[in-house]
Protein backbone atom coordinates (compact mmCIF):
# COMPACT_ATOMS: atom_id res chain seq x y z
CA UNK A 1 0.00 0.00 0.00
CA UNK A 2 2.80 2.39 0.94
CA UNK A 3 4.68 3.56 -2.12
CA UNK A 4 7.10 6.13 -0.80
CA UNK A 5 8.30 7.54 2.49
CA UNK A 6 7.56 11.15 3.27
CA UNK A 7 10.33 12.62 5.38
CA UNK A 8 9.30 15.31 7.82
CA UNK A 9 11.45 17.79 9.64
CA UNK A 10 9.82 16.93 12.99
CA UNK A 11 8.15 13.71 14.13
CA UNK A 12 4.47 13.30 13.50
CA UNK A 13 2.74 12.28 16.73
CA UNK A 14 -0.25 9.95 16.86
CA UNK A 15 -2.27 8.81 19.83
CA UNK A 16 -4.40 5.67 19.49
CA UNK A 17 -7.10 5.29 22.14
CA UNK A 18 -8.82 1.91 22.06
CA UNK A 19 -9.56 -0.69 24.70
CA UNK A 20 -8.68 -3.39 22.18
CA UNK A 21 -4.98 -3.97 21.65
CA UNK A 22 -5.92 -5.82 18.47
CA UNK A 23 -7.54 -2.70 17.01
CA UNK A 24 -4.60 -0.65 18.25
CA UNK A 25 -2.34 -2.95 16.23
CA UNK A 26 -4.47 -2.52 13.10
CA UNK A 27 -4.51 1.26 13.44
CA UNK A 28 -0.77 1.33 14.11
CA UNK A 29 -0.14 -0.62 10.89
CA UNK A 30 -2.34 1.76 8.91
CA UNK A 31 -0.44 4.76 10.29
CA UNK A 32 2.85 3.18 9.19
CA UNK A 33 1.32 2.59 5.76
CA UNK A 34 0.81 6.35 5.42
CA UNK A 35 4.56 6.55 4.89
CA UNK A 36 5.41 9.46 7.16
CA UNK A 37 8.85 9.50 8.78
CA UNK A 38 9.63 10.00 11.56
CA UNK A 39 6.52 9.19 13.56
CA UNK A 40 5.79 8.66 17.24
CA UNK A 41 2.83 6.59 18.34
CA UNK A 42 1.41 6.38 21.85
CA UNK A 43 -1.51 4.20 22.90
CA UNK A 44 -4.15 4.38 25.60
CA UNK A 45 -6.73 1.83 26.67
CA UNK A 46 -9.49 4.28 27.57
CA UNK A 47 -10.39 7.94 27.39
CA UNK A 48 -8.96 8.74 30.81
CA UNK A 49 -5.56 7.35 29.87
CA UNK A 50 -5.86 9.20 26.60
CA UNK A 51 -6.41 12.53 28.34
CA UNK A 52 -3.43 11.94 30.59
CA UNK A 53 -1.19 11.24 27.60
CA UNK A 54 -2.52 14.14 25.51
CA UNK A 55 -1.37 16.72 28.05
CA UNK A 56 2.28 15.70 27.69
CA UNK A 57 2.42 14.14 24.23
CA UNK A 58 0.39 16.75 22.29
CA UNK A 59 -0.42 14.45 19.37
CA UNK A 60 -1.02 15.80 15.90
CA UNK A 61 -3.89 13.34 15.53
CA UNK A 62 -5.89 11.32 18.06
CA UNK A 63 -7.58 8.22 16.69
CA UNK A 64 -10.07 6.92 19.18
CA UNK A 65 -12.66 4.22 19.72
CA UNK A 66 -16.09 5.23 20.94
CA UNK A 67 -17.17 2.57 23.44
CA UNK A 68 -14.52 2.17 26.11
CA UNK A 69 -14.51 1.62 29.87
CA UNK A 70 -14.21 4.59 32.26
CA UNK A 71 -14.23 7.47 29.76
CA UNK A 72 -15.72 6.98 26.28
CA UNK A 73 -14.21 8.41 23.13
CA UNK A 74 -16.81 11.14 22.87
CA UNK A 75 -16.42 12.08 26.55
CA UNK A 76 -12.66 12.24 26.03
CA UNK A 77 -13.03 14.59 23.05
CA UNK A 78 -15.47 16.80 24.96
CA UNK A 79 -13.05 16.90 27.88
CA UNK A 80 -10.04 17.79 25.76
CA UNK A 81 -11.98 20.64 24.16
CA UNK A 82 -12.82 21.90 27.65
CA UNK A 83 -9.13 21.61 28.54
CA UNK A 84 -8.39 24.12 25.78
CA UNK A 85 -7.29 21.76 23.01
CA UNK A 86 -9.83 23.26 20.62
CA UNK A 87 -7.91 22.47 17.46
CA UNK A 88 -6.53 19.04 18.28
CA UNK A 89 -7.36 16.71 15.41
CA UNK A 90 -9.48 13.74 16.37
CA UNK A 91 -10.91 10.88 14.35
CA UNK A 92 -13.15 8.04 15.46
CA UNK A 93 -12.86 4.36 14.56
CA UNK A 94 -16.00 2.77 15.89
CA UNK A 95 -19.01 0.53 15.45
CA UNK A 96 -21.28 3.32 16.74
CA UNK A 97 -23.82 4.40 14.12
CA UNK A 98 -26.46 6.30 16.05
CA UNK A 99 -26.95 9.48 13.96
CA UNK A 100 -27.49 11.76 16.97
CA UNK A 101 -24.27 10.56 18.59
CA UNK A 102 -22.30 10.84 15.36
CA UNK A 103 -23.60 14.38 14.94
CA UNK A 104 -22.35 15.13 18.44
CA UNK A 105 -18.91 13.85 17.48
CA UNK A 106 -18.94 16.06 14.40
CA UNK A 107 -20.00 19.07 16.44
CA UNK A 108 -17.05 18.36 18.74
CA UNK A 109 -14.73 18.61 15.79
CA UNK A 110 -14.25 14.98 14.75
CA UNK A 111 -12.33 15.02 11.47
CA UNK A 112 -13.49 11.59 10.45
CA UNK A 113 -15.67 8.78 11.69
CA UNK A 114 -14.63 5.44 10.27
CA UNK A 115 -16.91 2.52 10.95
CA UNK A 116 -15.66 -0.95 11.74
CA UNK A 117 -15.25 -3.09 9.75
CA UNK A 118 -12.99 -0.96 7.57
CA UNK A 119 -10.01 -1.72 5.40
CA UNK A 120 -6.52 -0.32 5.82
CA UNK A 121 -6.82 1.87 2.72
CA UNK A 122 -9.84 3.66 4.15
CA UNK A 123 -8.02 4.41 7.39
CA UNK A 124 -4.89 5.53 5.55
CA UNK A 125 -7.05 7.86 3.46
CA UNK A 126 -8.77 9.30 6.54
CA UNK A 127 -5.49 9.82 8.39
CA UNK A 128 -3.81 11.40 5.38
CA UNK A 129 -6.67 13.83 4.84
CA UNK A 130 -6.75 14.77 8.52
CA UNK A 131 -3.13 15.82 8.75
CA UNK A 132 -2.71 17.31 5.31
CA UNK A 133 -2.13 20.78 6.74
CA UNK A 134 0.51 19.47 9.17
CA UNK A 135 2.37 17.75 6.36
CA UNK A 136 2.23 20.84 4.17
CA UNK A 137 3.57 22.97 7.01
CA UNK A 138 6.22 20.42 7.95
CA UNK A 139 8.27 20.71 4.80
CA UNK A 140 7.70 17.14 3.74
CA UNK A 141 10.13 15.60 1.32
CA UNK A 142 9.32 12.36 -0.41
CA UNK A 143 12.36 10.10 -0.17
CA UNK A 144 11.73 8.37 -3.41
CA UNK A 145 11.01 11.00 -5.98
CA UNK A 146 9.58 9.31 -9.04
CA UNK A 147 7.89 11.60 -11.51
CA UNK A 148 4.29 11.99 -10.43
CA UNK A 149 2.30 9.43 -12.28
CA UNK A 150 -0.92 10.44 -13.89
CA UNK A 151 -3.27 7.58 -14.30
CA UNK A 152 -4.46 7.32 -17.85
CA UNK A 153 -7.93 8.68 -18.40
CA UNK A 154 -8.41 10.28 -14.97
CA UNK A 155 -9.56 13.90 -15.23
CA UNK A 156 -9.51 14.44 -11.46
CA UNK A 157 -7.19 12.24 -9.36
CA UNK A 158 -8.77 11.13 -6.08
CA UNK A 159 -6.02 12.69 -3.90
CA UNK A 160 -6.57 16.04 -5.61
CA UNK A 161 -10.31 15.85 -4.99
CA UNK A 162 -9.67 14.74 -1.42
CA UNK A 163 -7.44 17.75 -0.83
CA UNK A 164 -9.91 20.13 -2.48
CA UNK A 165 -12.76 18.85 -0.35
CA UNK A 166 -10.59 19.05 2.77
CA UNK A 167 -10.03 22.72 2.12
CA UNK A 168 -13.72 23.32 1.49
CA UNK A 169 -15.08 21.28 4.38
CA UNK A 170 -12.56 22.37 6.99
CA UNK A 171 -12.90 20.29 10.13
CA UNK A 172 -16.05 18.53 8.96
CA UNK A 173 -15.18 14.86 8.49
CA UNK A 174 -15.98 13.24 5.19
CA UNK A 175 -15.21 10.17 3.18
CA UNK A 176 -14.48 10.32 -0.51
CA UNK A 177 -15.23 7.10 -2.33
CA UNK A 178 -13.77 7.12 -5.85
CA UNK A 179 -15.03 5.17 -8.83
CA UNK A 180 -18.65 5.02 -7.75
CA UNK A 181 -20.05 5.78 -11.17
CA UNK A 182 -22.77 8.37 -11.55
CA UNK A 183 -25.58 7.04 -13.72
CA UNK A 184 -28.79 8.56 -15.04
CA UNK A 185 -30.96 6.49 -12.73
CA UNK A 186 -29.19 7.85 -9.64
CA UNK A 187 -29.48 11.51 -10.58
CA UNK A 188 -31.51 13.71 -8.30
CA UNK A 189 -34.38 15.76 -9.77
CA UNK A 190 -32.11 18.80 -9.99
CA UNK A 191 -28.33 18.82 -10.40
CA UNK A 192 -25.53 21.35 -10.68
CA UNK A 193 -23.76 21.30 -14.03
CA UNK A 194 -20.49 23.13 -14.58
CA UNK A 195 -18.74 23.80 -17.88
CA UNK A 196 -14.96 24.23 -17.78
CA UNK A 197 -12.77 25.90 -20.34
CA UNK A 198 -9.03 25.43 -20.70
CA UNK A 199 -6.16 27.23 -22.28
CA UNK A 200 -5.21 25.76 -25.65
CA UNK A 201 -8.58 24.09 -25.96
CA UNK A 202 -11.48 25.46 -27.94
CA UNK A 203 -14.96 25.10 -26.57
CA UNK A 204 -15.83 23.08 -23.49
CA UNK A 205 -12.85 21.27 -21.98
CA UNK A 206 -14.64 19.42 -19.19
CA UNK A 207 -17.98 19.05 -17.44
CA UNK A 208 -18.57 18.81 -13.73
CA UNK A 209 -21.76 17.41 -12.28
CA UNK A 210 -22.96 17.44 -8.68
CA UNK A 211 -26.27 15.88 -7.72
CA UNK A 212 -28.52 17.82 -5.35
CA UNK A 213 -27.32 15.78 -2.39
CA UNK A 214 -23.70 16.67 -3.12
CA UNK A 215 -24.69 20.33 -3.49
CA UNK A 216 -26.36 20.20 -0.07
CA UNK A 217 -23.45 18.34 1.53
CA UNK A 218 -20.60 20.37 0.09
CA UNK A 219 -22.55 23.64 0.16
CA UNK A 220 -23.70 22.93 3.69
CA UNK A 221 -20.25 21.80 4.75
CA UNK A 222 -18.61 24.96 3.44
CA UNK A 223 -21.24 26.94 5.35
CA UNK A 224 -20.63 24.78 8.47
CA UNK A 225 -24.38 24.12 8.59
CA UNK A 226 -25.85 21.71 11.10
CA UNK A 227 -26.67 18.16 9.98
CA UNK A 228 -30.39 18.83 10.52
CA UNK A 229 -30.38 21.75 8.08
CA UNK A 230 -28.45 19.80 5.45
CA UNK A 231 -30.60 16.71 5.81
CA UNK A 232 -33.77 18.81 5.51
CA UNK A 233 -32.54 20.33 2.24
CA UNK A 234 -31.58 16.87 0.96
CA UNK A 235 -34.99 15.49 1.90
CA UNK A 236 -36.66 18.27 -0.08
CA UNK A 237 -34.20 17.81 -2.93
CA UNK A 238 -33.78 21.56 -2.87
CA UNK A 239 -30.48 23.09 -1.76
CA UNK A 240 -30.73 26.56 -0.23
CA UNK A 241 -29.34 29.55 -2.10
CA UNK A 242 -26.33 29.59 0.22
CA UNK A 243 -25.64 25.90 -0.41
CA UNK A 244 -25.90 26.48 -4.15
CA UNK A 245 -23.55 29.44 -3.97
CA UNK A 246 -21.01 27.47 -1.93
CA UNK A 247 -21.26 24.46 -4.24
CA UNK A 248 -20.60 26.69 -7.25
CA UNK A 249 -17.53 28.07 -5.48
CA UNK A 250 -16.39 24.51 -4.84
CA UNK A 251 -16.92 23.64 -8.50
CA UNK A 252 -14.87 26.71 -9.41
CA UNK A 253 -12.03 25.66 -7.10
CA UNK A 254 -12.18 22.11 -8.50
CA UNK A 255 -10.85 23.54 -11.77
CA UNK A 256 -7.42 23.30 -10.16
CA UNK A 257 -7.85 19.54 -9.94
CA UNK A 258 -8.50 19.38 -13.67
CA UNK A 259 -5.06 20.82 -14.36
CA UNK A 260 -3.75 17.59 -12.86
CA UNK A 261 -5.79 15.69 -15.39
CA UNK A 262 -4.00 12.86 -17.10
CA UNK A 263 -6.33 13.25 -20.04
CA UNK A 264 -5.05 16.47 -21.51
CA UNK A 265 -3.10 18.23 -18.74
CA UNK A 266 -3.90 21.82 -19.69
CA UNK A 267 -1.96 24.65 -18.10
CA UNK A 268 -5.04 26.41 -16.86
CA UNK A 269 -8.65 25.42 -16.39
CA UNK A 270 -11.50 27.63 -15.22
CA UNK A 271 -15.19 27.28 -14.61
CA UNK A 272 -16.94 29.09 -17.44
CA UNK A 273 -20.51 28.49 -16.37
CA UNK A 274 -22.49 26.68 -13.73
CA UNK A 275 -26.20 26.10 -13.89
CA UNK A 276 -28.97 24.00 -12.42
CA UNK A 277 -30.28 21.30 -14.71
CA UNK A 278 -33.13 18.89 -14.23
CA UNK A 279 -32.48 15.19 -14.50
CA UNK A 280 -34.58 15.30 -17.68
CA UNK A 281 -32.00 17.59 -19.33
CA UNK A 282 -31.49 15.99 -22.73
CA UNK A 283 -27.68 16.17 -22.68
CA UNK A 284 -27.24 14.32 -19.38
CA UNK A 285 -27.63 10.74 -20.66
CA UNK A 286 -25.01 11.46 -23.30
CA UNK A 287 -22.62 12.91 -20.72
CA UNK A 288 -23.15 10.08 -18.27
CA UNK A 289 -22.72 7.42 -20.93
CA UNK A 290 -19.14 8.56 -21.50
CA UNK A 291 -16.99 5.55 -20.64
CA UNK A 292 -13.49 7.04 -20.48
CA UNK A 293 -11.88 10.25 -19.29
CA UNK A 294 -14.18 10.59 -16.33
CA UNK A 295 -13.78 10.69 -12.56
CA UNK A 296 -16.69 9.71 -10.35
CA UNK A 297 -16.87 10.22 -6.61
CA UNK A 298 -19.28 9.56 -3.81
CA UNK A 299 -18.84 11.88 -0.86
CA UNK A 300 -20.13 10.83 2.52
CA UNK A 301 -20.38 13.05 5.57
CA UNK A 302 -21.49 11.58 8.91
CA UNK A 303 -24.73 13.22 9.96
CA UNK A 304 -25.28 14.77 6.53
CA UNK A 305 -25.50 11.84 4.13
CA UNK A 306 -24.08 11.01 0.72
CA UNK A 307 -23.92 12.72 -2.64
CA UNK A 308 -22.28 12.21 -6.01
CA UNK A 309 -19.82 14.29 -7.96
CA UNK A 310 -18.37 13.53 -11.39
CA UNK A 311 -16.06 15.18 -13.89
CA UNK A 312 -15.85 14.43 -17.60
CA UNK A 313 -13.17 15.67 -19.96
CA UNK A 314 -14.95 16.15 -23.25
CA UNK A 315 -12.26 17.95 -25.24
CA UNK A 316 -10.92 15.91 -28.11
Amino acid sequence: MQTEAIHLSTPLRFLIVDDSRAIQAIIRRAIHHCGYEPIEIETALDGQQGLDIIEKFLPHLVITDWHMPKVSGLEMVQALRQMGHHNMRVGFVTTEKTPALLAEAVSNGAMFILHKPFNDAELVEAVTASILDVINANGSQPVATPAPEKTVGVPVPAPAMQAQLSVAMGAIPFRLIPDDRMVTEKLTPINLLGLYSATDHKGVFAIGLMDANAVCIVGGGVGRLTPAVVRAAMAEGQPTDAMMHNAQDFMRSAAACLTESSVAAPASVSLAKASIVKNSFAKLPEILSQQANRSDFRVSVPGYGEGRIAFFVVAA
Partner: protein
Amino acid sequence: MRVLAESADVAKVTACLSNGWEFLSGESRLFDRVYDVALAPQLAEFCYFMPLSELGKAAVGGVAVFIELPDANTIAAHMFGESPPDLHINNLNDACSEACNVLAMCVTLNLATEVDVDIGLPFRADSVVFDQICSTCEPIAIYKCNTLAGQIFVIAYDIANQS
Protein backbone atom coordinates in the same frame (compact mmCIF):
# COMPACT_ATOMS: atom_id res chain seq x y z
CA MET B 1 -43.41 -9.21 26.34
CA ARG B 2 -40.42 -9.10 24.05
CA VAL B 3 -38.45 -5.90 23.57
CA LEU B 4 -36.08 -7.18 20.90
CA ALA B 5 -37.02 -8.95 17.69
CA GLU B 6 -35.03 -10.18 14.75
CA SER B 7 -34.53 -7.99 11.72
CA ALA B 8 -36.71 -8.82 8.74
CA ASP B 9 -33.71 -8.22 6.52
CA VAL B 10 -31.69 -11.36 7.24
CA ALA B 11 -29.58 -10.89 4.12
CA LYS B 12 -28.41 -7.50 5.39
CA VAL B 13 -27.33 -9.03 8.68
CA THR B 14 -25.50 -11.96 7.10
CA ALA B 15 -23.74 -9.65 4.64
CA CYS B 16 -22.61 -7.45 7.53
CA LEU B 17 -21.39 -10.50 9.46
CA SER B 18 -19.41 -11.78 6.47
CA ASN B 19 -17.86 -8.37 5.98
CA GLY B 20 -17.04 -8.20 9.68
CA TRP B 21 -15.41 -11.62 9.66
CA GLU B 22 -13.24 -10.64 6.73
CA PHE B 23 -12.10 -7.56 8.66
CA LEU B 24 -11.29 -9.70 11.68
CA SER B 25 -9.68 -12.69 10.02
CA GLY B 26 -8.76 -11.72 6.49
CA GLU B 27 -10.87 -14.66 5.36
CA SER B 28 -13.94 -14.42 3.18
CA ARG B 29 -16.72 -16.52 4.74
CA LEU B 30 -20.48 -16.61 4.40
CA PHE B 31 -22.80 -16.44 7.38
CA ASP B 32 -26.21 -18.11 7.35
CA ARG B 33 -29.30 -17.76 9.49
CA VAL B 34 -29.95 -20.95 11.46
CA TYR B 35 -33.55 -21.72 12.32
CA ASP B 36 -33.05 -24.81 14.44
CA VAL B 37 -32.51 -23.59 18.00
CA ALA B 38 -31.12 -26.99 18.90
CA LEU B 39 -28.05 -26.15 16.83
CA ALA B 40 -27.11 -23.30 19.17
CA PRO B 41 -23.85 -24.13 20.95
CA GLN B 42 -23.85 -24.73 24.68
CA LEU B 43 -20.55 -22.89 25.08
CA ALA B 44 -17.28 -22.38 23.24
CA GLU B 45 -13.66 -21.90 24.20
CA PHE B 46 -14.13 -18.20 23.61
CA CYS B 47 -17.66 -17.01 24.31
CA TYR B 48 -18.15 -13.24 24.52
CA PHE B 49 -21.38 -11.46 25.31
CA MET B 50 -22.38 -7.91 24.47
CA PRO B 51 -25.18 -6.81 26.80
CA LEU B 52 -27.98 -4.60 25.53
CA SER B 53 -30.19 -2.41 27.68
CA GLU B 54 -32.94 0.09 27.12
CA LEU B 55 -31.29 3.50 27.25
CA GLY B 56 -31.01 4.47 30.91
CA LYS B 57 -33.10 1.50 31.96
CA ALA B 58 -32.89 -2.25 32.47
CA ALA B 59 -31.18 -4.90 30.40
CA VAL B 60 -33.19 -6.15 27.45
CA GLY B 61 -30.89 -8.85 26.09
CA GLY B 62 -27.59 -9.20 24.34
CA VAL B 63 -25.60 -10.82 21.59
CA ALA B 64 -23.15 -13.67 22.13
CA VAL B 65 -20.31 -14.70 19.84
CA PHE B 66 -18.92 -18.24 20.06
CA ILE B 67 -15.42 -18.90 18.77
CA GLU B 68 -13.29 -22.04 19.11
CA LEU B 69 -9.52 -21.90 19.65
CA PRO B 70 -8.37 -22.41 16.03
CA ASP B 71 -10.51 -19.50 14.83
CA ALA B 72 -9.44 -17.40 17.80
CA ASN B 73 -5.87 -18.01 16.65
CA THR B 74 -6.79 -17.01 13.11
CA ILE B 75 -8.29 -13.66 14.03
CA ALA B 76 -5.66 -12.81 16.63
CA ALA B 77 -2.89 -13.62 14.16
CA HIS B 78 -4.53 -11.45 11.53
CA MET B 79 -5.24 -8.51 13.80
CA PHE B 80 -1.94 -8.50 15.67
CA GLY B 81 0.11 -9.44 12.62
CA GLU B 82 1.77 -12.32 14.46
CA SER B 83 1.92 -16.04 13.77
CA PRO B 84 -0.25 -18.26 16.03
CA PRO B 85 2.61 -19.85 18.01
CA ASP B 86 3.67 -16.40 19.18
CA LEU B 87 0.24 -15.33 20.36
CA HIS B 88 -0.35 -14.81 24.06
CA ILE B 89 -3.68 -15.87 25.55
CA ASN B 90 -4.37 -12.21 26.35
CA ASN B 91 -4.17 -11.45 22.64
CA LEU B 92 -6.61 -14.26 21.86
CA ASN B 93 -9.04 -12.86 24.42
CA ASP B 94 -8.57 -9.34 23.09
CA ALA B 95 -9.20 -10.42 19.50
CA CYS B 96 -12.29 -12.43 20.46
CA SER B 97 -13.65 -9.51 22.46
CA GLU B 98 -13.24 -7.28 19.42
CA ALA B 99 -14.84 -9.99 17.27
CA CYS B 100 -17.82 -9.86 19.60
CA ASN B 101 -17.90 -6.08 19.28
CA VAL B 102 -17.87 -6.11 15.48
CA LEU B 103 -20.12 -9.12 14.86
CA ALA B 104 -22.63 -8.34 17.60
CA MET B 105 -23.07 -4.84 16.20
CA CYS B 106 -24.11 -6.32 12.85
CA VAL B 107 -26.97 -8.04 14.62
CA THR B 108 -27.78 -5.24 17.07
CA LEU B 109 -27.96 -2.50 14.46
CA ASN B 110 -30.52 -4.53 12.57
CA LEU B 111 -32.74 -5.62 15.45
CA ALA B 112 -36.38 -4.66 15.25
CA THR B 113 -37.14 -2.74 18.44
CA GLU B 114 -39.09 0.31 19.45
CA VAL B 115 -36.77 1.29 22.28
CA ASP B 116 -33.42 3.07 22.17
CA VAL B 117 -30.93 0.29 22.75
CA ASP B 118 -27.80 1.08 24.73
CA ILE B 119 -24.82 -1.08 23.87
CA GLY B 120 -22.62 -2.42 26.64
CA LEU B 121 -19.01 -3.52 26.49
CA PRO B 122 -18.36 -7.15 25.53
CA PHE B 123 -17.27 -9.47 28.32
CA ARG B 124 -16.15 -13.07 28.40
CA ALA B 125 -18.88 -15.47 29.46
CA ASP B 126 -17.62 -18.56 31.26
CA SER B 127 -19.86 -21.55 31.90
CA VAL B 128 -21.41 -20.01 35.01
CA VAL B 129 -22.21 -16.72 33.33
CA PHE B 130 -23.43 -18.49 30.21
CA ASP B 131 -25.78 -20.65 32.28
CA GLN B 132 -27.20 -17.47 33.81
CA ILE B 133 -27.71 -15.99 30.35
CA CYS B 134 -29.44 -19.15 29.14
CA SER B 135 -31.69 -19.25 32.20
CA THR B 136 -32.91 -15.69 31.74
CA CYS B 137 -32.76 -15.18 28.00
CA GLU B 138 -34.01 -16.92 24.92
CA PRO B 139 -32.43 -16.80 21.47
CA ILE B 140 -34.24 -14.74 18.88
CA ALA B 141 -31.79 -15.16 16.00
CA ILE B 142 -28.89 -17.52 15.36
CA TYR B 143 -26.25 -16.98 12.70
CA LYS B 144 -23.55 -19.46 11.77
CA CYS B 145 -20.42 -19.47 9.68
CA ASN B 146 -18.36 -22.50 8.65
CA THR B 147 -14.64 -21.82 8.74
CA LEU B 148 -11.74 -24.07 7.85
CA ALA B 149 -11.32 -24.87 11.52
CA GLY B 150 -14.89 -25.10 12.75
CA GLN B 151 -17.90 -22.88 13.20
CA ILE B 152 -18.59 -19.37 14.44
CA PHE B 153 -21.97 -18.67 16.03
CA VAL B 154 -23.53 -15.29 16.66
CA ILE B 155 -26.71 -15.42 18.72
CA ALA B 156 -29.04 -12.58 19.70
CA TYR B 157 -30.93 -13.02 22.96
CA ASP B 158 -33.97 -11.36 24.39
CA ILE B 159 -34.63 -11.45 28.11
CA ALA B 160 -37.61 -13.72 28.44
CA ASN B 161 -40.84 -12.74 30.17
CA GLN B 162 -40.19 -9.00 30.45
CA SER B 163 -43.22 -7.24 31.85
